[in-house]
């Protein structure tokens, strides 16, 4: 706000904010504390988590539990695959829709925009059948391909390329650059901010996707981290115990939190553009 409040209202607002922050932080801290307790102690009651002794044994156990690393690797391969695929397809198509005239362009673009309104649930059953027929389940391709179809990136890149000055391209043509070279050396480097925003959102969404990997990757070797953590949770009784499970949750959160901290600027930029 452009103004600050004074008196009792201000105190109440500060107290409410503090309470909200506590509610936000408490479950995270609780998870962290549980992950630092030995199973023997937790069996006596989870209340023991509020006091030492703490141990890193659960984390050490993760390093002996190779499935988690396999899931992590799967998540990384799938997320990076979708991200690079979306960036490449969206940039090419965005430039085509924004700058090149070809018959039916505007109609096709509107059709692609309609794709924005198609929720995954309405295509997932037919897609599952199709991938079964093509034997794509339990493969990286099977996990990556559906993510490439989302029209959002095309929409974003088309808008971005449309807003770029046409003279830059014309200057490049006069400089003897071919269409593709103009795209590659001039427009693509200039679209890096949009690529970063699109890339980070695509990466986050793929990393956290649950439904598709749940039904497509049924073989535990092909689980992504999301599905893997869910399966450990469902098989709670068979795991090494609560502390280990919570250590897994913390461990699984770390990569994405690092990505979040590094790319925070682009996330904020992307949200701002959506709000405007």
């Amino acid at each position, binding site marked *: 706000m452009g103004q600050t409040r004074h008196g009792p209202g201000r105190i109440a607002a500060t107290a409410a*904010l503090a309470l909200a922050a506590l509610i*936000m932080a408490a479950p995270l801290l609780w998870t962290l504390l549980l992950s630092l307790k030995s199973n023997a102690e937790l069996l006596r009651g989870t209340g023991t988590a509020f006091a030492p002794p703490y141990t890193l044994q659960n984390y050490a156990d993760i390093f002996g539990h190779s499935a988690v690393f396999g899931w992590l690797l799967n998540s990384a391969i799938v997320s990076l695959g979708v991200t690079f695929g979306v960036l490449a397809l969206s940039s090419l198509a965005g430039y085509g829709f924004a700058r090149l005239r070809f018959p039916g362009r505007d109609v096709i673009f509107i059709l692609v925009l309609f794709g924005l309104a198609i929720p995954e649930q309405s295509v997932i059953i037919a897609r599952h059948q199709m991938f079964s027929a093509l034997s794509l389940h339990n493969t990286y391709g099977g996990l990556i391909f559906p993510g*490439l179809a989302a029209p959002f990136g095309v929409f974003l890149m088309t808008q971005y390329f449309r807003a770029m000055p046409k003279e830059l391209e014309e200057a490049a043509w006069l400089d003897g650059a071919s269409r*593709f070279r103009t795209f590659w050396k001039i427009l693509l480097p200039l679209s890096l901010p949009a690529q970063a925003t699109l890339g980070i959102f695509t990466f986050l969404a793929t990393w956290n996707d649950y*439904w598709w990997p749940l039904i497509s990757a049924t073989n535990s070797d092909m689980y992504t981290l999301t599905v893997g953590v869910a399966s450990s*949770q*469902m098989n709670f009784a068979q795991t090494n115990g609560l502390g280990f499970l919570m250590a897994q949750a913390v461990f699984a959160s770390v990569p994405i939190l690092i990505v*979040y901290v590094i790319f925070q600027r682009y996330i904020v930029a992307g*949200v701002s553009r959506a*709000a405007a």
Partner: protein
Amino acid sequence: MKARARDAASGEALSGALFVAPYLLVFLVLLVYPLVSGIWLSLHKADLFGGSQYIGFENYVRLFKDDVFRKAVWNTCYFVLLTVPALTVIGLALALALNNGTRRSAVLRGLFFSSSVLSVTIVTLIWRMVLVPDGGLIADLLASLHLPSVPFLSDARLAMPAVALTTIWWCIGLPMMLFLAALQQVPKDLYEAAALDNAGWWRTLLRVTLPSIRRTALVVVVIEIILQFQLFGQAQIMTLGGPNNASLPIVLFIYQIGFQRWDIGYAAAASEILFCIILAAAMTQYLASRGRS
């Protein structure tokens, strides 16, 4: 002579096609084809083993008569009513409180958004350990006050509110950030003018701030309706839709029918109904944003 202009245009058309073709292929094969074939499937009695028989709208008729599906639709609407107003109001309140340049606000913004980047499986794992009556955080706190524990996830009346609470905790970051971005764009001189007019904090909020961000408020509400209608993971992992289908949402219904009972045509029909609901919400947003701008 005319042919010359046509040469150049067709060269451009060809490269245009080459730039657009890769995405268009993916779009047609992975989105349009499954959409159409999903609608086709919904008119069939089909199972996993390839047996398929055209039955017209019978699946849809069955859905309207299916108590479980009707319950799932009601549950989903109930869940949307629990989460969307709360996300909007809390998101706005946080944005108002944190819209300043102090270090403390920056840290808190990071905290409130951090849960949004976690996956649904981690969020549900965390919240299960907060909510379970046996050793959960809330149960432990109640026990220290000598109060009995509450079976949030196994009480039919509490299961959906508990899932909603988890969801609000998980999703609060996006509305907050959207409102923050909108607040940044309110012209500073409006506040200066309001201050010169002796407007107090509340008056400034009601007369300057809120009117300036009503477009964003609409966007937030519609985006959240679309997102929350797709509730799946939280219910599937935390309650399995129970007890007694009390927390069964539409998407989980589709999942159970389609991927556990393999009644594929029936699941496809349910997914088309969800599609229509979400499409209606998206259209509302489109029309509303048209009308305002």
